[in-house]
């Protein structure tokens, strides 16, 4: 029985205003997230991946606009909800593990209160010791002593703060958890512990997870499917094994080849040029200035994300077309 999709995003566009122009940080992104699945979203800085995460929770403020044909979470179109309904949905159905855990916790409030107010703002019936027990067990599940509940953020190390954010993210056992570069500021061993904790917690809850990052190695370790974003668009989406063995989009190939492999000391080859600024996007395929295979057609028409086979899709004129 194929797992049913928990989240369906259809043609999402997020535009913000800069120097008087509307710029599409996320330009027509569509994907599906299945129950219990871990979807990775990878891209260089400025590719729009964090913008997408915050847009899913409708957290962008005017003048930034968020439109989409549909953002359906468990059958409910989030864009159709009014503010109060959306507020209720946040954290109970879809939660977020922030990037900079360093200052994502309120510095003058105990960890206990920062977890309790998330509960109280959604569940009115809970007694206070039920909340206290719940917080104690959550901290235990992320490998932290219950005494952390009565500490302030400045008394915790970076790794501990990040795990508090994970505990916070699952306090209402949401259907979808978005992790926005959860370990970018952490050392490699602490990063492994945080990822290990996140995976265990996600398996227990059976909730779907979107993990956003820029480290290919990390993605290979903790996602089932991987989407690559470039200049606000998804250019490739595929199961993680076939992605690494047989990347379809030239950008994915270059990303993989630029990685230092611990085996042998081969000559390092980075990707020439840099991520285009949204102010002067190249015509046609946004990657063509840096693409070794680019030809005349690429500079004119923007390739759409088309299926390459049953489970994979790529946005490149050269990628093969899937015929069912």
């Amino acid at each position, binding site marked *: 029985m194929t797992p049913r999709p928990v989240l369906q995003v259809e043609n999402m566009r997020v535009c913000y205003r800069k120097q008087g122009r509307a710029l599409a940080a996320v330009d027509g992104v569509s994907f599906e997230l299945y129950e219990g699945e871990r979807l990775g979203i990878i891209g260089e800085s400025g590719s729009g991946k964090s913008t997408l995460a915050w847009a899913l929770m409708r*957290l962008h*403020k005017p003048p930034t606009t968020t439109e989409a044909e549909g953002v359906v979470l468990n059958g409910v179109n989030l864009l159709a909800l009014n503010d109060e309904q959306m507020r*209720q949905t946040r954290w109970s159905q879809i939660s977020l593990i922030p990037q900079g855990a360093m200052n994502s916790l309120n510095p*003058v*409030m105990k960890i206990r*209160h920062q977890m309790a*107010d*998330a509960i109280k703002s*959604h569940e009115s019936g809970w007694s206070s010791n039920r909340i206290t027990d719940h917080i104690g067990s959550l901290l235990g599940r992320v490998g932290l002593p219950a005494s952390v509940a009565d500490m302030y953020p400045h008394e915790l190390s970076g790794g501990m703060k990040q795990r508090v954010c994970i505990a916070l993210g699952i306090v209402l056992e949401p259907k979808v958890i978005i992790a926005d570069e959860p370990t970018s500021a952490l050392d490699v061993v602490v990063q492994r512990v945080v990822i290990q904790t996140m995976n265990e917690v996600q398996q227990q809850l059976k909730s779907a997870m979107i993990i956003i990052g820029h480290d290919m190695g990390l993605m290979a370790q903790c996602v089932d499917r991987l989407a690559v974003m470039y200049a606000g668009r998804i250019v490739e989406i595929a199961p993680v094994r076939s992605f690494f063995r047989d990347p379809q989009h030239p950008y994915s190939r270059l990303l993989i080849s630029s990685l230092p492999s611990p085996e042998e000391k081969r000559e390092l080859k980075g990707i020439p040029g840099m991520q285009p600024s949204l102010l002067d996007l190249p015509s046609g395929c946004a990657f063509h200035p840096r693409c070794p295979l680019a030809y005349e057609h690429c500079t004119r028409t923007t390739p759409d994300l088309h299926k390459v086979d049953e489970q994979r899709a790529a946005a490149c004129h050269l990628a093969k077309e899937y015929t069912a």
Partner: protein
Amino acid sequence: MKSRYLVRRIGMFFAVIIVAATLNFAIPRLAPGDPIGAVLEVLISRGQAVDGVESIIASYRERFGLNDPIATQYLRYITNSLTLDLGYSVTFFPQKVEDTLMDALPWTIGLLAVSTLIAFGLGTFLGALVAWPRAPRALQGLVPLLMPLSAVPYYLLALILIYVLAFTLKIFPLGGAYTPATKAEVSVGYVLDIINHAVLPALSIVLAQVGFWALGMRGTMVTVVGEDYLALAEAKGLSNRRIFFSYAMRNALLPQVTSLAIALGGVVSGSVLVEVVFNYPGIGWLLYNALQSSDYFVVQGVSFFLVLSVALAVLIVDLVYPRLDPRISR
């Protein structure tokens, strides 16, 4: 961490008082002629027939012990100041300076403390609302109004208020703290009379200060609104009110309380001058009269009391601050 912070703050309190007393001791000696000469010269020039001039001179000569070495004079002066023995008032001799001050102090404390607290509370709340993106847009209109108000000194605003509300519209009395010639007794009428007299002075202090606090708070709120923990609070689906009070304002309050401690000096000076404009019988009015009659030691006494009250207020704020910011107490 906590005790070291306390010791430092109390140490600072005494340092400020000793520096103030030292200035009061040193400045007159830098002036041409000696302080007693200055006092006598004023008395003679006004040809005032003051009975007992000789005893005043004798008490001051003993008081200053002009032949004592400067160091002993200084030490005696400091110990006297610390024990609030501030010498004799020239005009109301033999009344002690500290007693005249003690009579006037309750009025100043009442007026100053009440209006400053109102102004700080109101201004902080308004400033927070103005900087809050989801606050009603109408509040933005307040900002251009608050700005000029906070630029104008208290006593100038006081003069305008007297002219408009007291002189022309006659809603409030022109000055003083109570209707003259009423005896002080604990009755509702008397209290109402005091309040009626206190409204204009308090209003001028509050109006002149509320703008300053609002703009200070707006500045800190703007930085706090951009912080990550606020974005996460919103992502957590907390209510707008909860985010505004316990996440945004709670954090923006910290620099605001520090700026309260710094601004107290200016607040006290401004309020003292408001008393002069309203003939309000606090230490400001006492100072004005002392200057008129060159009652030299009362002037020094008032100056010392000003510093004492500010240093005390700063100490209180410093003791309250760790309770607001756990990063200091723990």
